[in-house]
């Protein structure tokens, strides 16, 4: 599939943008996790595109590692969500102010 | 090069013997009695070795009396170089002697952690000796810093009410100065390296570095600042009254007797020789600061409410006069300054011991609660009067000998400087008489019988009194020891009319 690298990167960047905005804007921890997930997926996409462009397997090798990282991240993220939900009855990120200190 | 080609590392022995004492007393911490016995024995041993060296080497010679040189960190050109000449020999004997006095004066009066107390004392002694012996700037800096840490804890743990404030203030003052010095040392070494291709920290080698004017002034100022804080000269002296007042007796004795002299020694050995050009230019300023310190210290001392703080401020005045002697840059002034360094160590050390004794008996150091001590403890009063007379500069006692030489040197350097410095004598009398009035004379506060000097206390004070008299009547024998080494220092020795 002779898709020029720029197009692929363009797509990856767009996906990354959406993921970032979701992570920054949405209030709920769930959507932050989703945002991160999307960003990771965008990165994966860029990696594979690179591998295709330079004809090297490394991109895809990294993609596999990235996959594992994403999985680990989700596992911890969701358990955090569970923990938060049990303790505070809410998924809202801004509720978490106990570190404020003063 | 050494006068005596002994291969036995005498200097290292003298340097590390106190550490043995430190280690011993730290280990024996749980048995205070054994700890005290060990401390006395260790300080006596140290004094014995140094005194023996003094007797053997005092004939002197122009080169180094003893010299040791081993590689330490070859990568940076840092060598473990120790040298001993008349000047450092004299100060080493003073160190060993005051260490014994400090140990004797604090037996039984250390409130807590007896073992640690003596361990710190000995560690500090080793640090001070290191400063006096080392000829390698890195080694010098190492001991310069090592010296502070024990004193910081001595003040911080065994001090009086405001001890933390005083300890931190003391540490910060000296640390800032020495950090600047470290910077200057490194810069000097690098510049020297670039210039001659050989990177070395050795003081003797670094003396020859050619520096352009601006840099040498800057480096000189950094060194000067570190030493001036230690001396202390006028604006940078405020740590001294606090540190002295809050330090335990032993701490004050060592602080007044030795730490102040490391500043003077630094100037003489390192500061002035390394940068003769800028040094010559800075002398008038140093003399002016010394003079201001002389009068300001006296005025400060006069207004104190705490007798220990009064004596601490008097040290500011004495060291101011000493700085004037140093800046006169002629044989009489310099010899007077070094002699005065020893005298001040002995007299002020003795006074601090006595303050400790007075405080132990009357429970307070405040003028309002003291008075009429003469009637209740005549022997204690007698010694106190004797040492105060010495500190006031009554001829026939030791301080006068030093002061006379300093005044002659100062007068020869500049008549006005000499005349003003003499004026300081009146103010010295003013605050000393106020001290005597407050402590000895006047009606006794309460008629409770006060224990006169105990045998141990008398044993501490007698050698001090003997030295005060001996140096007062015959300072010549000590001057001979360091006369040659002062002349050997590459200072711009202005002679002036004989």
């Amino acid at each position, binding site marked *: 599939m002779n898709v020029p690298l720029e197009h692929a990167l363009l797509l990856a960047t767009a996906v990354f943008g959406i993921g970032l905005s979701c992570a920054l804007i949405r209030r709920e921890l769930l959507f932050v996790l989703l945002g991160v997930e999307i960003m990771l997926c965008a990165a994966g996409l860029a990696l594979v595109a690179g591998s295709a462009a330079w004809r090297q397997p490394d991109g895809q090798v990294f993609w596999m590692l990235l996959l594992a990282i994403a999985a680990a991240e989700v596992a911890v993220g969701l358990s955090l969500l569970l923990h938060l939900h049990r303790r505070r009855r809410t998924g809202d990120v801004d509720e978490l102010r106990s570190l404020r*200190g003063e | 090069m050494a006068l005596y080609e002994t291969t036995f590392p005498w200097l290292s022995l003298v340097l590390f013997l106190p550490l043995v004492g430190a280690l011993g007393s730290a280990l024996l911490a749980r048995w205070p009695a054994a700890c005290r016995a060990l401390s006395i024995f260790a300080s006596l041993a140290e004094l014995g070795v140094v005194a023996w060296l003094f007797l053997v080497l005092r004939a002197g010679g122009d080169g180094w009396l003893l010299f040791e040189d081993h590689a330490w960190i070859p990568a940076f050109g840092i060598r473990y170089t120790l040298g001993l000449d008349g000047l450092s020999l004299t100060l080493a004997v003073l160190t060993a002697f005051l260490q014994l006095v400090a140990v004797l004066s604090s037996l039984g009066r250390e409130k807590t952690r007896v073992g640690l107390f003596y361990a710190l004392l000995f560690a500090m002694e080793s640090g001070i000796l290191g400063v006096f012996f080392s000829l390698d700037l890195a080694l010098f800096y190492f001991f310069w810093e090592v010296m502070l840490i024990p004193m910081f804890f001595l003040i911080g743990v065994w001090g009086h009410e405001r001890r933390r404030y005083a300890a931190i203030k003391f540490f910060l003052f000296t640390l800032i100065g020495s950090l600047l010095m470290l910077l200057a040392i490194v810069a000097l070494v690098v510049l020297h390296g670039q210039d001659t291709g050989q990177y070395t920290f050795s003081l003797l080698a670094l003396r020859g570095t050619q520096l352009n004017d601006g840099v040498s002034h800057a480096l000189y100022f950094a060194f000067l600042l570190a030493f001036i804080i230690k001396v202390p000269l006028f604006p940078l002296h*405020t740590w001294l009254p606090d540190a002295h007042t809050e330090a335990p007796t032993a701490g004050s004795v060592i602080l007044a007797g030795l730490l102040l002299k490391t500043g003077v020694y630094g100037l003489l050995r390192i500061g002035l020789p390394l940068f003769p050009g800028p040094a010559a230019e800075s002398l008038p300023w140093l003399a002016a600061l010394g003079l201001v310190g002389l009068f*300001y210290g006296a*005025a400060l001392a*006069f207004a104190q409410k705490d007798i220990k703080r009064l004596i601490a401020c008097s040290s500011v005045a004495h060291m101011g006069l000493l700085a004037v002697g140093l800046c006169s840059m002629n044989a009489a002034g310099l010899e007077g300054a070094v002699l005065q360094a020893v005298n001040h160590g002995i007299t002020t050390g003795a006074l601090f011991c006595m303050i400790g004794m007075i405080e132990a008996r009357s429970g307070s150091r405040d003028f309002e609660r003291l008075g009429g001590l003469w009637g209740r403890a005549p022997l204690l009063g007698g010694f106190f009067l004797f040492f105060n007379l010495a500190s006031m500069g009554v001829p026939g006692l030791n301080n006068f000998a030093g002061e006379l030489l300093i005044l*002659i040197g100062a007068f020869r350097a500049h008549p006005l400087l*000499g005349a003003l410095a*003499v004026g300081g004598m009146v103010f010295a009398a003013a605050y000393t008489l106020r001290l005597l009035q407050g402590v000895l*004379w006047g009606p006794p506060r309460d008629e409770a019988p006060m224990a006169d000097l105990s045998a141990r206390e008398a044993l501490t004070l007698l050698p001090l009194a003997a030295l005060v008299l001996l140096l007062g009547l015959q300072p010549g024998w000590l001057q001979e020891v360091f006369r040659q080494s002062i002349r050997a220092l590459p200072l711009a020795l202005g*002679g002036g009319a004989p």
Partner: protein
Amino acid sequence: MEAALPLIPLLPLLGSALILLLGRRLPPAAPGLIATATVAASAAVCLALFPLSAGEGIRARLFVWIAAEGFAAPFGLLFDPLSAPMALMVTAVSALIHLYATGYMREDPSRVRFFVLFNLFVFAMLLIVLADNLAILFVGWEGVGFCSYALIGFWYREPKNAAAGQKAFLVTRVGDVFLLIAMLWLASDLGTLGIREINGAAPALPPDTATAIGVLLLLGAAGKSAQLPLMTWLPDAMAGPTPVSALIHAATMVTAGAYLLCRLNPLLLQSPAAAAAVAAIGALTALYAALSALFQREIKRVLAYSTMSQVGYMLLGAGLGAVGAALFHLIVHAFFKALLFMAAGCVIHLFGGENDITRMGGLKKTKRALFWLFVAGVLCLAGAPLTGGFFSKDAILLAALSRGGWFFALLFGLGIATALLTAVYSFRLLYLVFLGERRASPDAHPHSVPRAMTVPLWPLAALGLFGGLMNLPGGGLLDGWLLPLAAPPEPASHAAEWALAAAAALMVLAGWALAQRRYRGAAPAPETGAARAFRSGLFADELYQRALVRPFKAFSRFCRRVVDGRVIDGGLEGGARLLASSGGWLSRLSNGSVSRYRLALGLGLLGMLGWMMVSVLWP
């Protein structure tokens, strides 16, 4: 025999050390006896060596005290025509006063400390007299200062006494500072401190240096001899025991200043200005002190001001270059003033410690012997004809008269006026204390005075009265004796001598008449304003207190509180506080809200992208 010279000063030192070490364990009377014995022995040695001191005298050099490159201060003693008579006088009078003190201090518990200091004082005084260089003289100078401080404040339980001692020490130390500056100047210019070498090399000094050194020496002497402007300490020094006043503040210490100026007379005469200043200060102090003495109430303060006045005469003599006359007056004055002080001690003892002469009187009836002794002293002090005082004061006035010139005539006038006033206040003393009816409260007073206190008075009275033989006008023994050292007085015409003698006698008679009319039995008049002014020495004390002492105390408090407290420490602690507060500002940034952290992450990313854009798009 020559080797015995160091014995003179060392004997009292030995006595002092002996008493200090053995003091407590000896029987009560022992300290006094040891002290008196050592001083008497020293006097004997002095007498024995006296003939040797003719001409060049003998020198002893024991060891080098302080030396540096180009400067040496050896411990040397010089026993020459000037120092020999002085040493003899000091040791003789001290011996008598020590004897008196054994009686005076019999009941005092701290006798040991008294006699240790008393002997130490004699040692220090002898150092001044016998020193062959200024360094050793300075040791004695300061030693004497310390002993007077310790002895004035002897009864230290009374803060007032200790304060008086402190004041004496400080004021004299101001004088010592000037002396030390003169010494330094001489050391650096002439390269030596030896007295004989200085006098020899004096002509080599440039004139203005000579004047400056002369003035410095004058101020140094003024400090020790309680002359203007450093005189306020002497009246308060009367707080000490009477033997102290007799020895220190009459015979020896106060005359040290005059002795110094006599000793360095050749140097002083190098600059006429300095010599004139010395003479002027002497004359002025004489007048000022005589006036103050006239209105004093306490017997010892009268004598203190009288001493100040008589030492003024000695300075006048020294200033005129009449070393012989000055030394003559010094020695005779020591005799009769010591006598008067000791007699005053007896009087105070008899009136049960009462000092105020207005509450005495009528002692003649009960103590006839003491009365006649006192009369002898008063006659010498007033300068009655044929007494020692007459001849010595006359010699000085003759020197002033024969010098010529309006300035010295003025000084002569002052001298004569002071002579009149001296006569008045001395007879006033006699009338108020011994004659008239007894004004003291009649309760029981001790009727007898210990014998040891009266015995020494007799020889002093004799010496005072017949002291004149030592130096009769026109080529007296003393002038001849001093020939090698000091120029002989100009031979004045006989007519001038006789006229002056007559004038002096007239002054004494007038003084007596005035005193008799004023104080014979009349009730003491209420004190007028002027009288009170003179009684406090023209408020000199308050002036110094307000002009010097209080500002210094304020300045030192200012230093402690403001300069040290606020400026330096304040500055440093201010810096520390600034650091701490800025730290606080940073910590508010991370306030624990997750959304703020997310935003920070985003910003960080934005920053990186921005930087990459810049480096990529605009290389």
